[in-house]
Structures are given as structure tokens and as C-alpha cells.
């Protein structure tokens, strides 16, 4: 069992028919893909990611309004951005929304994912319905919720006991609440899907053994399922963090950064600076900060969690 599992995890799959051939020959023909295989992707990546990134880095030291030639201004943009109270606020808002996303979505999607991995009646149908938000574009989702939450013609007008005057987008706390709720509604299905797959891969023998030892459902969940989902939790959290830091269209459509600047998160502020105020220098600074922040946070999560060592959770089985 053990060998089979580790073999399956290896990147190169040998085709079953040819298994009679010598092992050495196989590594020569198929082997690890050479660099040539990566050329198209690399060219694409350099052209559309690395070069623009360098261009943005250069632009962050220039003043450019879209007309005329960019003018070198040294650290001026950087100083301006760091002295800008709206920018500082936007960083906190971004972090807040990211943390809210992780805190709300992780437990929900673990529960749903584990449930969806089971074999209950109607499970497949209900999960299929539940995954629908995943198929909708973020723009559609935001437009939909904006209409549903209209204070005069939407849900709040029917449920005044809960929403009061329905001024959800007019106050900071409720506006942030709406943003967190909508992204939870939208992204929990994706993470549930990750957990569903991972939960399915947990060998049944573990549960059988636990049952013999007299562990109930709750204990099984905390002592087998959760530890076995460890790597998936990390994957999902990295996705959430990076997604949270780059959230944009939800804010653009739902709140436009308002009321005032109360939901102006960094990514939206970058758009505002660059494409609405034509201050491309400041926009570039914010863009760079976002790239750096997302990279650092991802690295920290990977390092802390030991994910980089890629230990197989199957180890426990042998």
C-alpha cells in the first residue's frame, strides 16, 4: 500500500502497458521535462508579468498623467503615498477584509467540504446547487447583491427588524460587513471544493480504526479529518490571503470605496489613483506594495506551516 501511494505521487507516470521495459530506458525517454517544455510559458510570463512589473517599478519613480512623457521625480511618489492618510487607512482595511475572509470562510468551507465528501442522500444535488456561485463572475455577483440589498426595493425593506433603515452602504461597519459577506458567499464554494477533494482522499481505514477505538463523530472530525486536511487548509488560506489582498471588483461595484473613503482598500485605491485621477506614479507605488505584501505573506504562510517541505499526509497510513 505504501509503495503504491508514494509511486502515485511521483510526477512521472509510467504507462501500464510498457511496464515490461527496463526502468533505465524509461527515465531516458520520458524523464523530467527539459527546459524547452517551459519555454512558451516562460516567454508568456516574462512578457506579460515580469516586464510589466519592471515597467511599474520604473513608473513608480516618475510622474505621468497619461499625456506626454513621464518625468523622473525620484522618491516623490513614494513619499506622497506613505504620507497619505487614505493609503494608510486602505492598508488596514485590506488587512481587515482579508482576515475577515479567512476567519469566516475557513470554518464554513471545511464543514461544508467535509459534509459534501460524504455519501448522504441528496448530497450530490445539494452540493451542485451550492457550487453555483462559483460559476458566476464577480461582477455579476456584485451587481446582484447590490440590487438585493437596495434599501427601498431589496431584502432590507422587507426585514426592517434586522436592517433598520437599510443604510448598509452608508456606514463603514455595515459596508465592510456587506463586502465580507458577499465574498464569503462567493468564495466559500471554491474552498469547500478543495476540502471536499481532500476529505475524500482520507483513507477510510483511519475512521474504521477510530470507530473500533470508540471515537465518536466529533472526535473523529477533530483527530482525523482536521489533521489530515492540514495541507489543504494551507492551500486554501494562501488563496484567501492573496485573493483578499487583490479584491477589487467587489469594492468597485458594491461600494466604490465609500462611504467617503471608508471601504477604499489598497487595490481599489491603486485603480482610483492611476485610472481615475491619472496619477500613474502613485498608482504604480501602490501596485508594487501590493505585489510585495502578497509575496511576503504567502511566503510566511508557507514557511510557518511547513508546506514547503511537502510532507505527504498519507504518511500516517503505513
Amino acid at each position: 500500500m505504501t509503495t503504491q501511494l508514494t509511486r502515485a505521487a511521483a510526477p512521472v507516470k509510467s504507462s501500464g502497458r510498457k511496464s515490461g521495459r527496463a526502468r533505465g530506458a524509461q527515465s531516458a525517454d520520458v524523464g523530467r521535462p527539459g527546459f524547452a517544455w517551459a519555454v512558451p510559458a516562460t516567454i508568456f510570463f516574462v512578457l506579460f508579468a515580469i516586464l510589466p512589473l519592471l515597467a511599474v517599478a520604473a513608473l513608480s519613480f516618475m510622474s505621468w498623467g497619461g499625456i506626454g512623457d513621464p518625468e523622473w521625480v525620484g522618491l516623490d511618489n513614494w513619499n506622497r503615498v506613505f504620507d497619505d492618510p487614505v493609503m494608510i487607512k486602505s492598508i488596514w482595511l485590506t488587512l481587515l477584509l482579508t482576515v475577515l475572509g479567512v476567519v469566516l470562510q475557513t470554518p464554513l468551507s471545511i464543514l461544508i467540504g467535509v459534509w459534501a465528501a460524504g455519501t448522504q442522500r441528496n448530497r450530490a444535488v445539494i452540493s451542485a446547487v451550492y457550487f453555483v456561485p462559483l460559476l458566476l463572475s464577480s461582477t455579476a455577483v456584485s451587481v446582484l447583491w447590490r440590487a438585493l440589498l437596495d434599501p427601498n426595493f431589496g431584502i432590507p425593506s422587507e426585514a426592517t427588524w434586522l436592517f433598520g433603515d437599510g443604510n448598509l452602504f452608508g456606514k463603514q461597519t455595515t459596508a465592510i460587513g456587506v463586502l465580507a459577506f458577499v465574498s464569503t458567499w462567493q468564495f466559500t464554494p471554491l474552498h469547500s471544493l478543495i476540502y471536499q477533494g481532500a476529505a475524500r482522499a482520507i483513507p477510510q481505514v483511519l475512521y474504521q480504526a477510530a470507530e473500533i477505538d470508540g471515537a465518536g463523530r466529533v472526535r473523529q472530525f477533530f483527530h482525523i479529518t482536521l489533521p489530515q486536511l492540514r495541507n489543504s487548509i494551507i492551500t486554501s488560506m494562501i488563496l484567501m490571503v492573496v485573493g483578499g489582498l487583490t479584491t477589487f471588483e467587489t469594492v468597485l461595484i458594491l461600494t466604490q470605496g465609500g462611504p467617503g473613503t471608508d471601504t477604499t482598500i489598497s487595490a481599489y485605491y491603486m485603480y482610483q489613483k492611476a485610472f481615475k485621477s491619472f496619477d500613474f506614479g502613485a498608482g504604480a507605488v501602490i501596485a508594487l506594495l501590493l505585489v510585495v505584501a502578497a509575496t511576503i505573506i504567502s511566503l510566511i504562510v508557507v514557511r510557518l506551516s511547513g508546506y514547503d517541505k511537502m510532507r505527504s499526509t498519507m504518511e500516517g497510513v503505513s
Partner: protein
Amino acid sequence: MRTRTRFSRMLVGGVTLGMALSLSACGDDGGSGSSDGKIHVLVYGDATNKVEKAVVAEFNKTSKVKAVLDTIPGATYQQKLQTIINTPQAPDVFYNWGAGSIQPFVKAGLLMPLDDFIKDDPKLKSAFLPSVFNAAQVDGKSYGVPMRGTQPVLLFSNDKVLKDAGTKAPKTWDELIDSVKKLKKSGVTPIALGGGDQWPTLMWFEYLYDRIAGPDLLEKAVGGDKDAWASEDSKKALNKLKELVDTGAFGTNYDSVKYTDGGSPALVARGKAGYELMGSWYYSQQQENAKEFAEKDLGYNSFPTIDGGKGDPANVVGNTNNYYSVMKKTKHPEAVAKFLKLMYSDKFIKQQLAIGNLPTTTNTEKFLDTAADPKYARYQFDLVKKAPSFQLSWDQAYPQSASEQMHQAVQQFFNGSLDVDGFIKAMQALPTA
């Protein structure tokens, strides 16, 4: 390996900005512009293009230099214009909102002053209403010829709601306050406001400042005189506005309502609100959304007068018109001049009126009966014609780079997070020319 893909995906996401920039920055060759014996006319893409297409076809019948109509659809017009205007793809003639929207281009030396054209053909100026024509002047030179319809801001009402509350459309500010109180008592939102869009809120500032301080204040402020915002008149206008907000005129949840998604017009159409301050396009909007209401109960009025105000009560604010401006580097200035002349031709005026636009030539009056709705067209035309001043919307009078901060300040003043002094400071911090 997984992290690697996440990382690259994130990187790609993070630099979308960079892509857009580098693509636009290195856009050379491509060979449109004026090099091919044609003039390119760039306009905002929407239903009105019908008329513009007809004008171009008309022009091409007689001209040796052919005109080509290019359109940029929808809301991204200004952004895209800004990215192409200094490249070889730049058009010869382009649509704009006058004043602030072309000021950066004038400053960058990209636009041709039209004074020479006007010297050759004085009608290019004299055929248009002066209050409209002058809104496209920068530093005393003319840079635009009006090319669509004028859109003054009016106080619309649901007359049935007003009647039920025992009130009627106000002539003065005190009547408005009184009307608001009565409407409130009858259980409706007195004034619908799409605060979520921010620019509808701005319209209230525009009218109050115009009525109380007169049009000079904004002219000074846009010209760079920051003290204008701190003047007594400015404070007076803000306090009046605050008073209106505090009476509960707009209800409490206006920041969650939008005009653009049909929220605030529906409030008025369904009898849940009494008034809404909006551009003249509101009329056709309601006709489309709520035909029955629009035909029976939709009222339109000019903004109330304010006692002791310095502004003429006949002044209006709004979008004066759209304009054609001409690039300095066009290779066919004579052809462009000929094209611009069509903007005051009878045929063009009739075509505009037929689709509901209100052109701003002095002789538009003659053709008002051919308009889609003659009564409404005449009302607007008289209003604009008699107006000593037509204040262009602030967010268009100021350079584009100011609009975001301006909209935020306006919203924050209404919801109380900025007081009078805070608002004045925010306005003083706006970039002027």
C-alpha cells in the same frame, strides 16, 4: 509547486496595471491619425451615434478629405482618450465635455484654438447660445464647438405625491423646506437621492453655491483661488445644505441608493419620494422605466430661488453640452472647419431633436416643434436661453484628476463625517489646472 503557480497568478494579477500601462505607453505606429488623407472623428459611443453617423455621411458626400467616425463605448471614454491623445492614434476631432475635460490637453499644447476658424466663419461661434459656447473656452480662447444636446439639472417631482401631502413644487427655498416637512409628515422620503453614485449629491452643492454665491465663486476656485472656498458665501451655502440634510429631506439611507441602477428614480416613480434633482435626461429615463407615471404625474421645475443670494435665480447648472475639439496636429484643418460647420446646420438640429437631444444653436427654437416631446424641449430651451450663467458640473469644470476626491468630500459632508470647515479644506486640496 502549488505555491509557485499561486505566486505567478498573483504576480500576474498584481501587475495588470503594468500591462495596461506598457501597452498604452508603447503604442506607436498603427497608422491612423491624419496621415491617410482622412480625418478621424472620435465620439462617445451610445445611441446618439446615429446622428453623428448621418453627419459624417453628409460631410463625405461633398468633401474630398473623408471623415471617419470612431467610437469608444460607454463609461471609459475619458480614460481611453487620455491614453491615446498623445499617440499617433489620436483622432483629429474628438468629443468632450468642455472646460476641465480638455484643460490638461490645452496645457499640454495638443489642441488647436478655434479662433482662426471663427474669424473665417463667425457663425461657428455666433450660431450657438453664448452661455453654452463659452463653457469650452480655456484662458480666453475657444477650443470647442457644441455638438450634442444641453442637459440642465432640474427639480423633478411626483406631483401626485406632492398633492397627497398638500404641497406643490416650490418657488423659493423656504417653500422647499416647508414642502419637505409636509412630505415627511405624510410618510414618504421627501427627496430621492442616489448618494451611492456620489455625483447626484454634487448637484445639490452646485445649485446652492450658484444661488447663494453666484457663479463667480466656482470660477475663482477652479482658477486656483483657494480662498474662494473659505468665503462667507461658501459657508452660508454649506450651512443651508446642512440644514436641509438635517431636516431629513433625503431620508437616512440615501448613501445606499443609486441613480445608475434605477433605485432613486424608482422611488419617485412608485410614489415613495416627492422630488429628485437630476439632469434633463431624467425625463426620458422615466419615460422608459415608468411610462404611466412619466405621462401623468412627472413634474419638472427649476431650482428654487434663495433670498439674499447673489446668483441670478435664472441661472442653471448641469452639462452645458458636449463639444468637438480639434487636435493641433491635424493635417486637414480646412476639412475640419468644414465639418464643424455642419454642427449648426438645420438638418443636424432636426436630427438631434428627433432623438430627444436639445441642440444649443440660437435658431433651435424654430425647430422645437419637431422635437420628440415639443413641450419639454421648449421648457428646457427657454430655461437655458434665459440663463445668464450655465454652470458646468463641478466634476467637469475641475480637471479630471479632482473628481474622485470631490465626490468623496461631497458624500462625507452629507453623512456628517466632514463638517463645514472639513469640506472647505477638502475642496481647497483639490488639484486645479
